[in-house]
């Protein structure tokens, strides 16, 4: 019988080369683990990037625009995203706004000033403007008569006896990148400020919800018994009709609809969901051994809640808070949309959408820009919240 190994097959190695003590996997803390799984989730990551972008847009955007949110240039009201520049003389460029105003512009489309209208000939559809004593005539007859319809144009501009039918250039709006509203305010600037207000409302309301909800839920869960039942019955009653109705009632009641009242109202109404969640968490966590140990060591109850229960329930609380932000953004824009929100001259995204609603068929971009911003904001926070939830879900945790 031959031995499979000979003693000479083995040799001593240097202790530094030993591998048996090496840990196969570094241990991760709760948040490191969450972050690791969040990074793998493409949707959550794009949500996070979206949140980052929208915060950047709202917080730092206004620093880069030349206008204030209430700065009006009524001469340049309701200008769209694209402008048709006509060259009617050497170095004289004009642009006709959708409101039939004639503006003198630079070659690249930057607005300079508005020309005075001298006469309106509605019967013949010819409008006259005064350019330093000379007459500019805008002819709208192309839409009026059948035989002229073949030209396929809406109007022509006549100056010094020459008729200009086609624009010299169609450029983007250089003065107002995303157009201007009905009193000549820059829509981009208004949207940035609107996003800022919507975000402020949402974030502070979410913090308020966190404070009230966590306190209420933790007290109810920790007290247990009769107190708990009474406190939760109260929550049930509040929750038994749509929360939005309370918000509307309170907003009607307070009349003065500033930023603070909206935030306060949202906080005062939406805490119930958070309270229910925290109570459930506390009820299950307080039976854990470490709580028993803390209690035996004489730690007072408030400290147990603060140091042991809340940190352990932080995951679901954080998810609920992230999800609260899109809800608050939505509720705030909803309120502003039905005329109960932020009052002028301040504007949230909902107010902007509401203001633009009347002219939706003429100036749709005024409605679309704030609407897209709201949708983007909600999408980003929802993606991020969903991702955070699955990253924190113990059932999805692998090894």
């Amino acid at each position, binding site marked *: 019988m031959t031995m499979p190994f000979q003693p000479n097959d083995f040799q001593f190695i240097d202790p530094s080369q030993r591998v048996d003590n090496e840990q196969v996997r570094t241990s991760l803390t709760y948040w490191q683990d969450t972050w690791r799984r969040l990074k793998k989730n493409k949707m959550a990551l794009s949500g996070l990037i979206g949140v980052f972008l929208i915060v950047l847009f709202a917080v730092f955007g206004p620093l880069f625009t030349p206008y204030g949110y209430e700065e009006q240039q009524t001469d340049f009201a309701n200008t769209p995203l694209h402008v048709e520049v006509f060259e009617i003389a050497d170095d004289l460029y004009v642009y006709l706004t959708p409101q039939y105003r004639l503006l003198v512009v630079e070659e690249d489309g930057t607005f300079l000033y508005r020309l005075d209208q001298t006469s309106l000939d509605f019967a013949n559809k010819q409008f006259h403007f005064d350019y330093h004593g000379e007459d500019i005539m805008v002819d709208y007859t192309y839409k009026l008569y059948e035989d002229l319809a073949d030209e396929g144009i809406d109007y022509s501009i006549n100056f010094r006896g020459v008729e200009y039918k086609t624009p010299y250039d169609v450029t983007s709006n250089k003065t107002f990148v995303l157009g201007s509203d009905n009193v000549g305010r820059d829509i981009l600037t208004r949207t940035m400020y609107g996003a800022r207000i919507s975000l402020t409302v949402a974030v502070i309301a979410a913090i308020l919800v966190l404070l009230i909800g966590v306190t209420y839920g933790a007290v109810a869960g920790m007290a247990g018994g009769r107190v708990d039942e009474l406190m939760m019955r109260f929550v049930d009653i509040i929750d038994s009709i*749509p929360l939005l109705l309370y918000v509307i009632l309170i907003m009607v009641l307070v009349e003065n609809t500033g930023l603070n009242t909206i935030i306060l109202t949202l906080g005062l109404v939406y805490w119930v969901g958070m309270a229910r969640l925290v109570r459930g968490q506390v009820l299950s966590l307080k039976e854990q051994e470490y709580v028993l140990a803390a209690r035996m060591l004489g730690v007072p109850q408030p400290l147990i809640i603060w140091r042991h229960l809340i940190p352990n329930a932080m995951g679901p609380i954080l998810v609920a808070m992230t999800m609260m932000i899109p809800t608050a953004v939505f509720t705030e824009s909803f309120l502003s949309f039905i005329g109960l929100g932020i009052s002028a001259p301040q504007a949230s995204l909902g107010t902007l*959408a509401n203001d633009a609603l009347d002219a939706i068929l003429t100036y*749709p971009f005024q409605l679309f820009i704030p609407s897209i911003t709201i*949708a983007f904001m*909600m999408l980003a926070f929802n993606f991020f919240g969903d991702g955070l939830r699955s990253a924190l879900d113990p059932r999805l945790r692998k090894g």
Partner: protein
Amino acid sequence: MQKFKETLLTSLKAVRAFFENYYVRRVLSALLTIILIATVTFLMMHAIPGGPFSRERALPEEIIEALNRKYHLDDPLWKQYLDYMVGLFTFNLGPSFKRTGFDVEELIAMGFPATAKIGLMAITLIVVIGIPIGIISALRQNRPADYFVMFIATLGVTIPSFVVASVFIYVFAGLLNWVDAFGLNRPSSYIGPTLALVGYSLAFVSRLTRSSMLEVLRQDYIRTARANGLSRFKVIYKHALKNALIPVVTYIGPMIAAILTGSFVVEKVFTIPGIGKYFVQSVSDRDYTMIIGTTVFYAVLYVVMVLLVDVAYSLIDPRIRLGKKSE
């Protein structure tokens, strides 16, 4: 004497059993909720500083007094409250402050048909489209169809109804001129409001159905049924679907809430003469009786709907009816 005591005891027991019955408790709590909400609304409206007739330009003293007398606002609070509660249960909600000549219940009755039509169409659409979409998506998990449906559903959950409504008007009424931009005068006018109303709930229901279906399909009894030779179709529709739909049924309550509140916006955007439009208008007009009336109407409608859903639910799932009070 002994006999009397026994009769008393048995009748007491019967009364107690009556109140411990799930349905009785459920109806009572619904009633209590309605009374509480009516009270809270009433008190809130009466807490408004200056009363309903305060304007920027103050009215003469005598006119305010006359107005107060006309609307019984000079009665003591408890009497007003009593009158109001009695009125509530006899469907008499008092005159509208701003639309003189109309009672609140008349206005509600005028607006209700339009709101109900759109709401019912929305609910039908959610059930008929949302649930099948969720099932298909679950059966095609991680395939293009699934990704497509879930992408659309995520958009649906996040895009506010007023955006859907206004984009719809711009594209189909403005650019294409296929439908009217407002009102409910033609059958095609229902498309826009219904779409804007279902957006959120449709997306939510299909997502819920999908995830719940996936959960059920992983269960052992499904594998057993397949192993026993049942067809895939039969397993899915006879065994899996029944259990998968339980979480979906629980969503009906929030769904009704979403449709009710959604109707505010949709009726405003499409100028539909429904309750939602009256409500929004009464809010901006500060028409207090109308606000109280519509709020209570919404609350009652909602509470009754949820009650019906709960009763239906307890019939489907006996665990609810027989189980402990809560938890």
